[in-house]
């Protein structure tokens, strides 16, 4: 059969039901195979949209997301989603067309060295050199993308090779002598960690997106509840531990709660699980958690002692390690009373510094209220995606995620324009779930073309624009740290979102009244098709609390 037909067979063998992409010259053969190949292709309007849709699909479902693009500009349009998937460890496979082998290296029409361009931002990539390699390459890509620390894998297929005739035989194993992720976790280290926890007087569990990738939310909760352990999550980890909960400190980091950041600051033992001590968490590294010893559990050994030296490293899969750690800890029967003083201190922070904001005196919608209203309107149980900016942080703060894979955002790369396409992908993966994108007015316009995809492919996502008329997060920094010199952050009055939505064939609504907001949102959510809701919020509200960049937890403002 043609190599491209083999690609489709391999996709099906991997359980792929949906792929996202755009055709072009170099991947025409692939699209011919897709025509009646039995995998649903979602025809996106921009390859970046296709790439983020594949990410949203993967983050919502845990299955590998797939995006396709042609050579040259198609492939380069995938660069941002690939980088995004790398930073947030999203299991994704990107299949690009490449120019014919006789044109490679000649600056042929639509030639771009996409493997070279993406070398630093992929978990792995393969450039096909012989059509007979294709089936194994596809399976290898899926294997690498979805195991160990997940990430993006690129397969670049020259056009002539994709048309070649090959003897296709199903591939049942891949040969990767240099790739064997550690999963079990060292038993001695786990025991030592349990002991350290039993002897800690001011412990904190700090969990990240790795817990969600590992499907270990339940196991994390069990560890947290094996004693009165306070738990905080990164922006990527929200939902790994159910909020609200007695042990829940809220999110930590730059826009985290004071309770979470102060607890990290005073902790004597921090148990980090599937997180990576990003600078948005640590702030000033030299003043980060100065009294703490660190247990670090991660499937990627290179994360251990990368930014913060670990005292008890445990390499492996959180889903396997956490139950063992909980069991070991319980066996120690340590006296929970040792944590009384710690909890008193935490409660004090919680009571003194809850997340708060000043309500408007008129009917103006405060952005924080917008998120709380959305929580009410969705029953707190929607899959929520976001773009990047203030609205993202407010959603993270005010939408209490109780389950994993409900909160989908671009944490590591901070990609504006991520929200709509990722919501689209999430909805395709989870058609029975309510999927809402909390969009920034600045961000949405960056990938707004995907509204056309939502309409024509009948993907009924609901977009709630937090419309503050600004590139709000940048404006906030200019206000706070650059003497209020607002430089290129005003979005003006364009576009008219209701008309834009209608032009795409979606429904558009504008909301301005805080009193009826929950009901108005419910009404929009009840619509059958895609809806764009332009929620007008206070233009110059700042997102607090905040650790100014490069400062320490103690320096939180607001």
């Amino acid at each position: 059969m043609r190599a491209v037909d083999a690609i489709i067979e391999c996709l099906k063998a991997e359980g792929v039901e949906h792929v996202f992409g755009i055709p072009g010259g170099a991947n025409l053969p692939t699209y011919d195979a897709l025509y009646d190949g039995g995998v649903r292709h979602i025809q996106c309007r921009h390859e970046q949209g296709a790439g983020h849709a594949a990410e949203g699909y993967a983050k919502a479902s845990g299955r590998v997301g797939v995006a396709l693009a042609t050579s040259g500009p198609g492939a380069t349009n995938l660069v941002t989603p690939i980088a995004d998937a790398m930073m947030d460890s999203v299991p994704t496979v990107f299949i690009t067309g490449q120019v014919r082998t006789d044109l490679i290296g000649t600056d042929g029409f639509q030639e771009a060295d996409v493997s070279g361009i993406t070398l630093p931002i992929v978990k792995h990539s393969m450039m096909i050199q012989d059509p007979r390699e294709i089936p194994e390459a596809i399976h290898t890509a899926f294997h690498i993308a979805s195991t160990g620390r997940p990430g993006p894998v690129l397969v670049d297929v020259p056009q002539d090779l994709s048309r070649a005739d090959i003897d296709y035989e199903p591939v049942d194993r891949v040969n990767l002598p240099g790739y064997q992720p550690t999963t079990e976790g060292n038993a001695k280290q786990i025991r030592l960690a349990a002991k350290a926890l039993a002897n800690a007087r001011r412990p904190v569990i700090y969990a990240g997106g790795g817990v969600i990738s590992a499907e270990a939310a339940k196991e994390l909760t069990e560890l947290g509840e094996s004693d009165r352990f306070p738990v905080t999550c990164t922006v990527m980890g929200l939902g790994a531990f159910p909020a609200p909960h007695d042990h829940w400190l809220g999110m930590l980091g730059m826009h985290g709660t004071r309770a979470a950041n102060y607890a990290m600051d005073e902790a004597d033992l921090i148990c980090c699980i599937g997180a990576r001590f990003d600078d948005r968490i640590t702030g000033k590294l030299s003043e980060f958690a100065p009294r703490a010893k660190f247990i670090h559990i991660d499937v990627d050994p290179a994360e251990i002692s990368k930014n913060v030296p670990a005292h008890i490293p445990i390499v492996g899969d959180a889903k396997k390690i956490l139950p063992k750690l909980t069991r070991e800890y319980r066996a120690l029967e340590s006296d929970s009373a040792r944590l009384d003083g710690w909890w008193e201190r935490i409660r004090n922070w919680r009571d003194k510094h809850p997340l708060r904001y000043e309500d408007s005196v008129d009917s103006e919608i405060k952005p924080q209220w917008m998120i709380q209203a959305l929580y009410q309107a969705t029953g707190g149980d929607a899959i929520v995606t976001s773009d990047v900016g203030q609205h993202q942080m407010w959603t993270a703060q005010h939408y209490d995620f109780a389950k994993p894979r409900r909160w989908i955002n671009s944490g590591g790369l901070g990609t504006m324009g991520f929200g709509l396409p990722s919501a689209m992908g999430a909805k395709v993966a989870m058609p029975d779930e309510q999927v809402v994108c909390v969009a920034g007015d600045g961000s949405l316009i960056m990938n707004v073309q995907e509204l056309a995809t939502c309409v024509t492919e009948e993907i009924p996502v609901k977009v709630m624009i937090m419309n503050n008329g600004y590139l709000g997060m940048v404006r906030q920094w200019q206000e706070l740290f650059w003497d209020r010199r607002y430089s290129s952050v005003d979005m003006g009055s364009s576009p008219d979102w209701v008309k834009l939505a209608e032009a795409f064939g979606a429904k558009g609504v504008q909301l301005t009244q805080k009193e009826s907001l929950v009901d108005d949102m419910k009404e929009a959510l009840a619509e059958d098709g895609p809806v764009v809701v332009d929620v007008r919020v206070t233009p110059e509200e700042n997102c607090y609390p905040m650790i100014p960049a490069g400062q320490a937890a103690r320096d939180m403002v607001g």
Partner: protein
Amino acid sequence: MGEPATKEVLNLEDLQVAGGVSTGRKHVLSILSENKPGVLARIAGLFARRGFNIESLAVGPTDDPSISRFTLTVDGAAHPIDQVTKQLHKLINVIKIRDLEPEATVARELALFKISADDNARAQIMQFTDIFRGKVVDVSKRSVTVEVTGSDDKIEAFEQMVRPFGLIEMVRTGEIAVSRGRGTT
């Protein structure tokens, strides 16, 4: 998990940092990789991206044509060497990495020195070449070219000796190394 957990007290103060420490010396890493296109670019790119400095790098085939060997030297004072090796291990094509212990390793490098030499300098240079067990591989009216093999210390010492004559060019291969004894590197 074997024996039951003990309840004895563990003083958190006693816990030591694991890894992430600078060793302060030069490390010779011997890396086996699949012989696939782009592996060199991946390794070089990784070093550039993470800000690790490669002091020298030698690449070549092994006895198994599907496997290549990279020998590279890194300054362990500038970077925690375990971070370097862990990052290298993340490259899918990298099969095995050995951080060669200096005492248990035979390391060699080959260098070619083109030195300007009139008649009486030539005699002196040839004398040094003898002492360093080098070889004169080319002579012209106004130059000699000498081949020296050895550890990088030896090559640097030779360089010191001949520099005053006027060093026209020097080319070094970068170190290659194998472990001492019967075991494979």
